[in-house]
């Protein structure tokens, strides 16, 4: 009998959807790779690129000129932090992905401005009222659309509204990479100056990401040469990857409108209920009392070590994550849980189960039982 394997780490990246692979294959074969050129074949490639850009723009409700294709989510976030021209300071939430937080430290130093933080509540949501007054007029501000570990949806629109109320004009960037697969981004895109989305979280290819850069938002490029993407990102575009991105984004939108994301939320709730029902006080669920992504279930098991739990789950075929993993694969205490003032004992026992619209009902109960048994084994040994 082959071992049952269930993938519950979609927040790290969802396997490529078959329709995406098909669309990419069509773009990879038969066309020259470079869309820039004074001949019909380059134009054919450019046509495919333009079509993908228009589709992405239309899905996101912006103009094609506001779409910048870059080589992955981290690059998108790094580049976003070079926006805003002459800024008075930078204010970045403490629960951002390191693609934002580490780049923010470097950029604040490089640009010679101060770097401020934001208040976060115990449910993992930024406290707008406590934070907004400390954001100076003319600052570059970063607040993610939803947290990639806990799934807690962040008050991006409320922050903008509050800043307008205070009379503060800021450049607002919102990392929507963790959110885009299951969240309607209309509101975030309407209030932010820059929004980032990465392909591999959508069942698209890795190494392709989109920045929505609103008209009139100055951007100091990271990669120059060639003048591509209206000189905001040099280098020949990965046209097949971009086609894959556009396809994956369209499929994600269909999931939202067809009710598949709502069903995903029910699956997640059932998974949570099953685990909490069995383990009771032995488990703490993050972000339960705030709006969160339908895909995310973030759990804390006091007295259990995340890395051991993940090993045991892996042995049983359940692929999950602690929420944060460094490139070596070693789990570290999450800065997100630190910001939420979660106790060390709980933070060390974090588990993130992240599902997708490809998750089947049949696997939900099995996942719950696998987690319950593993936690019991580690506690009883």
């Amino acid at each position: 009998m082959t071992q049952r394997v269930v993938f519950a780490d979609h927040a790290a990246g969802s396997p490529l959807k078959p329709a995406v692979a098909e669309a990419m294959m069509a773009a990879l074969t038969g066309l020259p790779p470079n869309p820039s050129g004074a001949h019909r074949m380059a134009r054919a490639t450019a046509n495919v690129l333009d079509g993908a850009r228009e589709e992405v723009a239309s899905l996101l409700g912006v103009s094609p000129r506001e779409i910048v294709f870059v080589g992955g989510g981290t690059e998108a976030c790094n580049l976003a932090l070079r926006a805003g021209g002459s800024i008075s300071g930078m204010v970045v939430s403490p629960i951002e992905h390191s693609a934002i937080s580490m780049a923010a430290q470097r950029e604040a130093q490089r640009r010679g401005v101060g770097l401020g933080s934001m208040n976060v509540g115990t449910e993992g949501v930024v406290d707008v009222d406590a934070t907004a007054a400390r954001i100076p007029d003319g600052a570059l501000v970063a607040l993610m659309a939803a947290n990639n570990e806990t799934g807690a949806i962040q008050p991006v629109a409320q922050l903008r509204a509050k800043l307008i109320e205070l009379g503060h004009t800021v450049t607002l960037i919102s990392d929507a990479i963790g959110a885009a697969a299951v969240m309607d981004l209309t509101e975030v895109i309407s209030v932010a100056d820059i929004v980032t989305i990465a392909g591999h979280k959508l069942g698209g290819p890795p190494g392709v990401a989109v920045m929505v850069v609103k008209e009139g938002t100055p951007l100091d490029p990271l990669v120059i040469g060639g003048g591509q993407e209206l000189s905001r990102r040099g280098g020949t575009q990965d046209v097949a990857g971009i086609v894959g991105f556009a396809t994956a984004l369209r499929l994600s939108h269909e999931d939202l409108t067809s009710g598949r994301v709502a069903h995903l939320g029910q699956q997640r709730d059932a998974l949570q209920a099953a685990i909490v029902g069995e383990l009771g006080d032995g488990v703490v669920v993050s972000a339960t009392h705030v709006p969160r992504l339908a895909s995310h279930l973030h759990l804390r098991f006091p007295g259990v070590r995340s890395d051991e739990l993940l090993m045991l789950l892996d042995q049983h075929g359940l692929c999950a994550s602690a929420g944060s993993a460094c490139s070596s694969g070693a789990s570290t205490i999450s800065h997100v849980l630190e910001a939420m003032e979660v106790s060390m004992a709980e933070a060390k026992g974090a588990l993130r189960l992240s599902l997708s619209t490809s998750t089947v009902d049949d696997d939900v109960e099995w996942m719950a039982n696998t987690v319950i048994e593993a936690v019991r084994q580690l506690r009883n040994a």
Partner: protein
Amino acid sequence: MKVLVAMSGGVDSSVAAALVAEAGHEVAGVTLKLWGGESDTGCCSVADVEDARRVAAQLGIDHHVLNLTEEFDHFVVDPYVAAHAAGTTPNPCVECNRHLKFGMLFDVADRLGFDMVATGHHARIATVGDEAVLQRGADANKDQSYVVGMLQAEHLKRVLFPVGVMEKSEVRAIATERGLRTASKAESQDVCFIERSKGRRNFLSTRLTLTPAAIVDQDSGTVVGEVEALELITVGQRQGLGVDSDGNRRVAVTIDRSRPAVVVTTPEQAQVTSLRLDPSTWTFAVPTAELNGDSLRVQLRSHAPSVEARVFPDHLELSKAIDPIAAGQLCVMFDASDTTVIASAVIA
């Protein structure tokens, strides 16, 4: 059997994993992430984890990473710094083996349901009667029985040292034969958390205040020089302490924090014939051993030859005079044939 193999990303543990897997056991590899700070010694780096992961994939076994950086700080790095501050010289590799590579790994194996733990150490587990005993590795130049000499009898029943029975050249040959990417990888020999390019002084200076001290002659009591940092001097050290009137290098015999001073003498006078042991640190590889004046071979440093000694609960009487040994170093006692580990204790 279910075997958990500690894979550092080096050739020895790669081959250990290969041999255990080929023996038909159910095997998972685990790489311990120990040091979270800067390193250029090639230990605990992302590249090592990648090597271990790749080798595990080549062998068709699971691979996991355990993050023990906090425990490493607690059990190894902090005590290392504290010991230097107190004028003693610990062996961090021994303490890492004691608390992490074996201590914590056995706990993990228990919780995850593994029967045995395997590593790539060059030491042998043999069976005498019903008991598992720890013996020197087959390759005399690579023998690591000293650094695992603190293993207790109950551990030995659960440990596999698959490469301990072979020469290093055989280990590399096996790795090459199987196309493992670690086959010709260089060995890591330095203390993993101290950057080679910056050294021990730099490391310690970031963690404690270094104390300048006088060099004082033991016989005359006169000050004959000074050192930049008391914490960097080890009992038995000859480097950096100058020469006496006969042209002999001086030897450090006492680190006196109260003055502060490094007391030195001639190589002849520095020699010792007895050493004190910390009675709270005894471990017994042979559980029945009762050491009360027994004549054994004792090894006092990694890769140093053993010497004959009578072993008592709180001291050693050596059969010949040797250079002084710093407090904090491990004494591993072997049987009279210098093959089998009997016990260990830390020099006081």
